[in-house]
């Protein structure tokens, strides 16, 4: 099974790149590959010009702090037996910070996410979901990462808290100039969070390009399907979408031949059944993998 298949992308400093797709499309796998939390079968991941795949375990260990993941489930990413203090002290210790400076640094960090020092002695299960996610976030930020992969960082949070976490993520990107890969299926948030994005389907990019132009003019039939699934907030427009959502997210272990999207595509032609389209530049910095574009 190919979870990610022939994907190329580059993210520069301070840039936020969105990765959108339905469950099982390989978007989380791609995120892990970029951080070398998984080894690719073939292909290359370069960070500042050096090929991560060629680095030794020891060199990689030195680089890891610069490449940080932010997990969807903050509960699982925090050791349940650690207190908030130990959770935040750990990355600082690994970086070799002096013991007496750690306390002050932790206060700083908590302040950045609007959390008080009264939490220091609490365990993760004694925190609310939003607090946990902010601790997870600030722990990643303690390492001053250059590149962050945030995999659905707000999906498990309440609406009113989601914006807080995302806002924080955004400010870090802007202030510290970190690159961000934002993995999500929430199109509304992707629109607010990213400048460029890629639409993934069964391990392949279907469309990549500018976020704003994607939402105003999606090119790929799958992109159009996704954008039309975005529920309007205007009750007068309810059920107005053309009935173009067909089929279900496919089983990644059983990808069809030809264009992967053809079983669900309303516009498919005989060609689509046999030949897989590559990404074509269609101008406006947009690339689309479709025979019909």
């Amino acid at each position, binding site marked *: 099974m190919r979870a990610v298949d022939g994907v190329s992308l580059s993210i520069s400093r301070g840039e936020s790149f969105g990765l959108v797709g339905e469950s099982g499309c390989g978007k989380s796998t791609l995120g892990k590959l970029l951080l070398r939390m998984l080894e690719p079968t073939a292909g290359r991941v370069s960070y500042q010009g050096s090929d991560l795949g060629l680095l030794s375990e020891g060199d990689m260990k030195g680089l890891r702090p610069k490449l940080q993941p932010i997990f969807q489930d903050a509960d699982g990413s925090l050791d349940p037996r650690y207190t908030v203090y130990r959770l935040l002290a750990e990355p600082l210790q690994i970086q070799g910070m002096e013991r007496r400076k750690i306390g002050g640094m932790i206060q700083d960090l908590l302040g950045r996410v609007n959390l008080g020092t009264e939490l220091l002695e609490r365990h993760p299960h004694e925190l609310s979901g939003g607090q946990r996610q902010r601790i997870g976030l600030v722990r990643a930020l303690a390492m001053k990462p250059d590149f962050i992969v945030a995999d659905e960082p707000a999906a498990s949070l309440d609406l*009113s*808290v989601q914006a807080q976490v995302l*806002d924080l993520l955004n400010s870090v990107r802007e202030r510290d100039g970190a690159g961000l890969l934002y993995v999500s299926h929430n199109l509304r948030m992707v629109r607010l969070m990213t400048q460029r994005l890629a639409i993934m389907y069964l391990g392949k990019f279907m469309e990549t390009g500018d976020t704003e132009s994607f939402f105003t003019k999606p090119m790929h039939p799958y992109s159009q399907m996704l954008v039309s699934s*975005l*529920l309007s*907030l*205007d009750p007068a427009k309810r059920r107005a979408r053309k*009935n173009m959502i067909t089929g*279900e997210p496919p089983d990644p272990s059983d990808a069809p031949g030809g264009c992967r999207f053809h079983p669900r595509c309303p516009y498919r032609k005989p060609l689509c059944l046999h030949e897989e389209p590559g990404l074509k530049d269609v101008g406006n910095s947009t690339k689309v993998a479709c025979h019909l574009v």
Partner: protein
Amino acid sequence: MRKPLLEVKDLQIKFETKRGTIAVSDGVSFAIGENETLCLVGESGCGKSVVAVSIMGLLPAHARVAGEIRYREADLLQCSPGEWSRFRGREIAMIFEQPMSCLNPVISAGRQIAEAYAANNRCSKREALAEARRKLDEVGIPENCFVKFPHELSGGMQQRVMIAIALACRPNLLIADEPTAALDVTVQCQILELLHCLKDRYRMSMLLITHDLGVVAEMADTVGVMYAGTMMELSGVEDFFYRPGHPYSRALMNVVAGNALSPIRGSVPHLLEPVPGCPFHARCVDAVEQCRRARPQPRIVNGRMERCHHFTGDNSGRQLDQMVSSR
């Protein structure tokens, strides 16, 4: 207004726990008319699911309930457990967020629907199976899934099976608790569309619980906004989206409809530590001294209920039409 199908009046639900009594629902009132959809919106722990479960009569034993839940002529809270169980399934049915945990993993999809039908109708096994096939077709499940087991179906298909089971006995009221929260966006649209169609076909009423304002805009006739166990606002869907009244509703709307991220400060209060005054005051941009001291009482103006000291019925200057329609 037509005579409501379900009327909930001043519902109070308290849980006795080791760490004290918590009020998960405090003075919740609403009514659902025939063929009408009411959406309960709120964040986790605001008590919206508990309200739904209380209508089904499935609250845990340590819950203390007061108030009135009137279904047609009957006050459900006065019913004996036996009488109440006769409403379940036949009159009121419920679907949940995680269909997989509600389906029996060792019985095929078709047989589960047939069983639900047979449980409330006198019929032969053959009739029940035939009915199950019809239901399966009605909810858009392919014929070959009849013999499949729940784990062989996708999340969307599982939810369709749940809907088929819930509708097996043609209930008049369907309670749906976050029916699409666990699904992909494209599948969510399909399920919502299905619920729309079924609701019209059977002239059902629906109580839909969600945290997603997109779902509300898509489905609701009336919107109830809950916060920390209290109903903060109850208004028609147009009012809610075009002229959101309560500061909490406006803040929520800002989060989803704004052109930039607009966080709401603070976090949801814990029910074990009740806040004096208005439960939202610590996070409210318009909070004044009165909000910190006194709990606002529900006020109704022009068919719209709000629990806010600032509410006078005049919504000028609060319009968000432009913001909503610009997206």
